[in-house]
């Protein structure tokens, strides 16, 4: 009993000191965790913003290139229009052949050129709107809905 009574004040003093250290270290740990989470969030946000900026820039560049391509296609077609080609041929000294100036030969194995096939127009990508992973774009609420909604839907 005597020993126990003697030890109690010392223990309570030690406990107070320990509690203070413990609570301080917990607070510091919490701050560190928050800083880490904040840092990670900042890093991810920065990456998303950077990726988004690149997407916007590339989309804009794609639009410009497609427009330039259209202009060039139209110019090329104008330059090779039959009237212009005929004028150039005449200027170079050529003239249309008359029927009796042509010799016809039978060439064994000759295959006539295949008919022209026009290029396919681009396929629609209307349905695939989200090319970026949802991890980059969804909010916490959306994530919770997705995770718990999916879990709840499972049998």
């Amino acid at each position, binding site marked *: 009993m005597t020993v126990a009574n003697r030890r109690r004040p010392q223990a309570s003093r030690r406990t107070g000191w320990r509690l203070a250290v413990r609570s301080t270290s917990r607070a510091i740990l919490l701050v560190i965790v928050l800083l880490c989470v904040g840092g990670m969030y900042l890093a991810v*946000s920065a990456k*998303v*913003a*950077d*990726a*988004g*900026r690149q*997407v*916007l820039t590339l*989309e804009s560049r794609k*639009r410009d290139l497609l*427009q330039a391509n*259209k*202009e060039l*296609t*139209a*110019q*090329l*077609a*104008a330059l*090779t*229009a*039959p*009237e212009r080609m*005929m004028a150039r041929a005449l200027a170079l000294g050529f003239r*249309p*052949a*008359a*029927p*009796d100036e*042509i010799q*016809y030969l*039978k060439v064994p194995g000759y295959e006539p050129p295949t*008919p*022209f*096939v*026009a*290029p*396919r*127009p*681009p*396929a*629609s*990508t*209307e349905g*695939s*709107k*989200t*090319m*970026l992973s949802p991890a*980059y*774009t969804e909010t916490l609420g959306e994530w919770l809905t997705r995770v718990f909604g999916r879990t709840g839907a499972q049998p």
Partner: protein
Amino acid sequence: MGLVAATLLIQLVRVQFGPYAPIFAARGNASVGRVEQVVPARGQIYDRDGQILATNANLYHIEIEIRQLTPRSQQDIAAVLSKLLVIPFENLHNQLTRDWASQGQFRIRLTRPDGQGGNLPITVDQSVADVLNGFLADPTAPDLSGLAMVSAPKRVYPAGSLAGHVLGFVNEEGKGFFGVEGYYDEWLAGKPITIEQPLIPPEARPEPNPPAGVNLVLTIDTEIQQMVEDALKESIKSSQAESGQIIVMDPHTGEILAMAASPELDPNNYQPWLKKDKQGKEPVITPGASAQYEPGSTFKILTMAAALDTGAVTPDTTFVDTGSIEVGGHEILNWDGRAWGPQTMTGCMQHSLNVCLAYVASDKLGAKDFYQYLANFGIGRLTGIDLAGEVAGQLRTPRHPLWTESDLGTNSFGQGVSVTPVQLLAAVSAVANGGVMVQPHLVREVVGPQGAYWPKTTVLGQPISKQTADTLSQMLSQSLSGETQYAHVNGYELAGKTGTAQVPTEYGYDPNLTIASFIGWGPLADPQFMVLVRLDKPKTSPWGSVVAAPVFQQVVQRLVVLMHIPPDSVRAQLSVGG
């Protein structure tokens, strides 16, 4: 501290779930992005060898982002655009200073007066856009803050007026009219979609592609088209005709290889074609399918085909031409008013005798068979050619309350009946194609995102037997050499018929004006082409044999070269392995 936190929390809940939550949400969304309509590129149009006939370039609409405007930029934008585009400064300044925000509009498209009391959106081409972009990038240039250029597709026809009547045109709103552009407008246009365009990087996504318009490959061969247009231009000039058309068609497939019309239409500059002429008439676009006319003697081909097919006559059946015949109380005379005496049916076609053909229709065939055959040939009905604005022509049959027996006489030689050039080509294709009538068409291939589709030849019917077709072809080949030497082409056996039709007016037929025409095909053994020439109101001579037949000759002489068709003798040699 706790109080502040509690206030914040309450405010958060109020914003998220309170009565004004939708308003806050809308404001939030407005700052995230803007809703835009993405219009797919209109499909391109090619000739059969891949030459581009219609494509897209860019024009730019001038748009203003109201929230970015400053008093200085309002002044500068109005000044710059006024100078570049010759638009009154006040007009532009008024548009820029109006209180759009109170109307809920934050982005507007600038317009210009159209001269008729209305306004049209301002559009600028690439060169003006480059100037404006230069100003936007230069901090020392006029302040154009808030100005944006929105690209929009512009239809371009690189070959100018070449095949303009076949193509039709596309207006500023992107809608196709007339020709192929009008007929295939929905297919070519694709489907615009509405998207939300994000403004902040984290929300950026690749832009979706809307369902694109299809690309079309036409049956037109631009080399043949150019040659035919040149020939038409020359013939109009030499005959002093008012207008004209030449159509080249493959009689086996119905593919239109060339379709020229004068006056020519440049689809890049279609506006003059929207106005009425001095007589208040609307100009006829794509006349090959929409300009009906009385075919005159070219129609005798169908009358004779019907008579041969029923067995009412043979090529050697004789007829004594006295120079006139009365049908239904109406006296019919020959083109020259002469009596030609005894003639075979081949002679009747060779000399293009109205009296003989009226006799065949009225005495040999009868109204019932005659009109039944015309119906089988598709006269008075649409051919279904893939051109917008086709008309059906006019044919009065015995069922019509105004029909009289005299119509039978006049219809037999192509008077009192109206057809379109493609309708006549389709009908006569039965003679050139062993009795089988094919549908004329202009699209050879349709290419969409999923793949290519080749429309097949459509058979419209078999109005006559193969034997009748072959017999009549021979008759027309023989008669052609006698009727006019102008349609002859060395080395090639051809068949054809001239036509000279008077022009009907509200006071009867004009005694001086005619429509001179020719329809022919060849080589006779295996026809590869049909050519129809039509010249409206020629002045140098009214006769088809004088003004239209030489054009046929000129066209065929070049056509056999461009289509690589050897002369008959060479073809016979090659076919036996020589």
